[in-house]
């Protein structure tokens, strides 16, 4: 049996009195894409934020490559200074991009990598080479996103679809083990979703390990190896796309998918 790259066990999260995540457990193998679907307020964003250490779960364990990054019962995994490094296992692409407005597409893609490179022991000696390497990598990523002519543009000069592709390049630049997407096309005009979905599809074809929260059912079915359906903070059902979309076992899943029939999303 293959060891999963990501293991999430019994994650619980409450805000004040509201339980938003109730005992979430799933795993993901390297090179696979899992898609999380579910109605609004079901806790999808909160789950991704927990994986990226933007929220701290109340209960549960997160493991990457068998290394325990977070265990609610082990205070040593909560040390603030170590969390920064742990975040680097994950990348997160936000619904509304959150590009840095004062930097060009290329600078957005390079910034974090450059700051990280300053921590390398050989940084002072090889400053120039390292910088060139980071630049070349960022340019290659932007080209891969189809943005070779947009590298020197600022975010406000780009369309929503272009911004989101820069955001994807920016996340990829740090070579995360697992790339997370939170409804990457929900903030876009309908005619711009295609270019972003195409980029994600290419990443899936290149065996990028991904967790994709999306409302685009046809896309989820097509791209993901595994589907998780969430409702009200629990995983109601998970399985292969053909199973979830073809033969959902749970009534709640059927009801949810029915809502998408004939809307063009499916």
């Amino acid at each position, binding site marked *: 049996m293959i060891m999963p790259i990501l293991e999430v066990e019994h994650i619980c999260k409450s805000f004040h009195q509201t339980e938003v995540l109730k005992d979430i457990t799933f795993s993901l193998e390297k090179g696979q894409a899992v898609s999380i679907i579910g109605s609004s307020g079901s806790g999808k964003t909160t789950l991704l934020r927990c994986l*990226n*250490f*933007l929220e701290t779960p109340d209960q549960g364990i997160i493991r990457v490559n068998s290394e325990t990054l977070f265990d609610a019962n082990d205070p040593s995994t909560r040390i603030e200074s170590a969390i*920064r*490094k742990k*975040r*680097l296992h*994950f*990348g*997160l692409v*936000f619904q*509304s991009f*959150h*590009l*840095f*407005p*004062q*930097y060009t597409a290329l600078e957005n893609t390079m*910034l*974090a990598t450059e*700051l*990280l490179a300053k921590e390398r022991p050989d940084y002072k000696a090889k400053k120039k080479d390292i910088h060139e390497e980071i630049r070349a990598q960022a340019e290659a990523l932007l080209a891969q996103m189809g943005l070779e002519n947009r590298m020197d543009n*600022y*975010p*406000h000069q780009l369309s929503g679809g272009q911004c989101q592709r820069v955001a994807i390049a*920016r*996340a990829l630049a*740090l070579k995360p083990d697992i790339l997370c997407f939170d409804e990457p096309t929900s903030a876009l005009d309908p005619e711009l979703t295609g270019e972003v979905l195409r980029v994600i599809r290419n990443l899936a074809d290149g065996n990028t390990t991904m967790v994709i929260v999306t409302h685009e059912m046809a896309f989820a079915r097509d791209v993901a190896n595994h589907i998780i359906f969430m409702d009200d903070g629990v995983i109601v059902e998970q399985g292969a796309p053909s199973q979830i979309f073809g033969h959902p076992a749970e009534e709640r899943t059927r009801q949810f998918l029915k809502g998408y029939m004939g809307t063009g999303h499916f």
Partner: protein
Amino acid sequence: MGQISEQLPIVVESLNIGFLQTLKLFFVTLTGSFPLGLVIAFGSMSRFRPLSYLTKLIVWIIRGTPLMIQLLIIYYFPGLVLHNPIWGSGEAGRFLAASVSFIFNYACYFSEIYRGGIQSVPIGQEEAGLVLGMTKPQIFFKITLLQMIKRIVPPMSNEIITLVKDTSLARIIALQEIIWAGQAFMKGSHGISGAIWPLFFTAVYYLIFNGILTMLLGRLEKKLDYFR
């Protein structure tokens, strides 16, 4: 008319000296209140309630009362009430008292502008930085700071222009700034009395100085126009 052209060099020299004092007060105020304002801003945003309430109370009092009263109280209170004239006598003491009043007053105004600036940068910017493995200081200096500066330049410009004119309030404690110098000619300074035209001249000094400032601040605003 002949009389004025004779008096002009004397008046200009006197006004220049006064204006120098005005400039000094202006720059000392900015130098002190820029950083102090940031400290007050962080104080009022503190999660430690007593600190944030206390700073908010101070800001409310300082912004809610005339600067002229603050000047008078700060200058006279130690000597008259505490019998401990900490400011010393003479021009140097008056300048010190004026500086303290102005720095404190303007720091309170700036703190509110800073606070608005910091809070107007969307939380998503910080989160994007965190997710990319940046440290909190890196996020502040590389991401938040410039966006904050861009947002506060216009309101800060307003305050700075107001400060130029407010420096004239220091006249109330007889600081020998430019209005004091101009007014002196009404009362018989340098053998010139009853002359009101030097006061018009002082207005020109303010106009020119504010003109230059407006231009420089406008340039800074333009410079930050390259992003949104």
